[in-house]
């Protein structure tokens, strides 16, 4: 496995240029640049809102300096609240090439598209010779999410990803699982796996916060398709989702955009702090995927029972299908058929090893299905967070 060496010491498994719009008003121009560039390594990300927000600034900064990113083109309308100067400085300080285009100062739609295409072309040449160096499993960051869960998720795909996570953590990779709203009902058993009692208390608090937040929203993290697929309650869905975390100790709790300080298993607390303010914590699966990528994930393991087709900008998404009937219907979108477990044709361990091998292959450059199909979703909303407390990142003892 080889990686693109970045100035902060992190290594990327892809070398993409992100064309980044900083308000919805610049979205069309940015999208047109990406479409005309017609290169899978030139990708669209962005934030739609006009109001400033610390969280969204942090997420976009982390995406633009993600190890899989080689260069950045910013698209601003000109009058929006996004702090484009602070973002540009962060990217420049990281040693990456960056070009900021302000539509109001660049002659409007057509000439900004032209300038954007020229910037992309120039940047492609600039990043073509980034040093590739040896990279090992202990430098990988892997996130997991489930979407379109059903009654098979918790017995096949999720525990298989859990086994893969155990193997990755054993080799000192960073692994993260998330969505505390989908861990309601598991807080006690999860807290018992924390590396320290104080971290266990932080985990309990994060789930209690999620329960309050979702109650205020009027809906749990539970979709109609979950019920059609045999899941009856939030806590039943949670128990299945929780299996993705495997059996390792939990070494820390991070929030979106935070980087894990060392190898281990981390819970990402994605539910905003303070009084519920900006709506649902994550409006759909890609918001969570984007957050895990902002926290450095090179690869995302996405388990699904009903069948999701999404991918992501920046980092490849690997689909693990829990339900054998769904696999039949959507085989072209699925990387791994964990439905074999439901049919009694493979064990959880076997599929876990299959996922582990695939993670290494995708990290070495092989395209995942969603990547090859051109899925490059990205979704950032408004949120607010306080910094994590001192108990959230206990120092991990080697071998624990």
């Amino acid at each position: 496995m080889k990686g693109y060496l970045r100035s902060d010491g992190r290594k990327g498994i892809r070398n993409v240029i992100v064309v980044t719009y900083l308000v919805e008003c610049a979205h069309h121009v940015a999208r047109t640049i990406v479409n005309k560039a017609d290169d899978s390594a030139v990708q669209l990300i962005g934030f739609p809102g006009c109001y400033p927000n610390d969280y969204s600034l942090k997420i976009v900064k982390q995406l633009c300096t993600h190890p899989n990113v080689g260069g950045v083109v910013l698209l601003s309308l000109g009058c929006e609240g996004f702090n484009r100067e602070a973002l540009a400085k962060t990217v420049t300080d990281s040693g990456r090439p960056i070009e900021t285009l302000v539509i109001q100062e660049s002659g409007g739609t057509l000439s900004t598209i032209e300038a954007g295409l020229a910037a992309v072309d120039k940047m492609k040449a600039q990043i073509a010779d980034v040093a590739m160096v040896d990279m090992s499993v202990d430098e990988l960051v892997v996130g997991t999410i489930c979407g379109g869960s059903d009654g098979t998720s918790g017995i096949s795909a999720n525990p298989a990803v859990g086994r893969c996570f155990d193997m990755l953590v054993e080799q000192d990779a960073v692994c993260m699982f998330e969505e505390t709203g989908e861990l309601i009902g598991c807080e006690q058993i999860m807290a018992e796996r924390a590396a320290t009692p104080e971290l266990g208390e932080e985990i309990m608090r994060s789930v209690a916060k999620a329960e309050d937040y979702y109650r205020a929203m009027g809906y749990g993290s539970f979709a109609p398709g979950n019920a059609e697929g045999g899941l009856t309650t939030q806590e039943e869905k949670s128990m299945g989702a929780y299996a993705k975390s495997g059996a390792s100790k939990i070494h820390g709790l991070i929030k979106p955009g935070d980087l894990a300080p060392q190898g281990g298993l981390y819970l990402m607390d994605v539910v905003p702090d303070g009084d519920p303010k900006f709506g649902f914590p994550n409006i759909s699966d890609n918001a969570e995927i984007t957050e895990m990528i902002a926290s450095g994930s090179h690869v995302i393991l996405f388990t699904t029972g009903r069948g999701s087709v999404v991918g992501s900008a920046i980092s490849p998404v690997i689909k693990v299908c829990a339900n054998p009937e769904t696999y039949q219907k959507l085989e072209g979108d699925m990387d791994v058929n964990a439905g074999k477990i439901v049919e009694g044709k493979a064990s959880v361990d076997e599929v876990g090893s299959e996922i582990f091998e695939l993670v290494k292959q995708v990290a070495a450059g092989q395209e995942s299905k969603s990547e090859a199909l051109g899925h490059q979703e990205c979704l950032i909303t408004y949120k607010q967070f306080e910094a994590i407390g001192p108990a959230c990142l206990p120092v991990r003892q080697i071998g624990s």
Partner: protein
Amino acid sequence: MMNDKRFVLLSDEDNVLVCCGKVAAGEKVIVEQQEVEMATEITVGHKIARTPLEVGEKIIKYGAPIGSTVKPVGFAEHVHIHNMKSDYMASYTRQAKVGE
């Protein structure tokens, strides 16, 4: 009598079984060493009762409580939003909230 392999017990403490292969309404199957005629179709991922259940009983799956019954449930009957609810928060379908 061999139990039907389409219904799987995940944990010894559980009082539900998970369906891993579709079973038709009216089909005669062996569950917990007893022959029973299925009242309704059961599709993959859904649950049936391993024992008869009273109102208010905890449903145990993966060895953990996942909600409570709101109606009595017969042996091998489908356990879902029509007869159980969350102990935390309501679920919902496209048409309605359930288990409030």
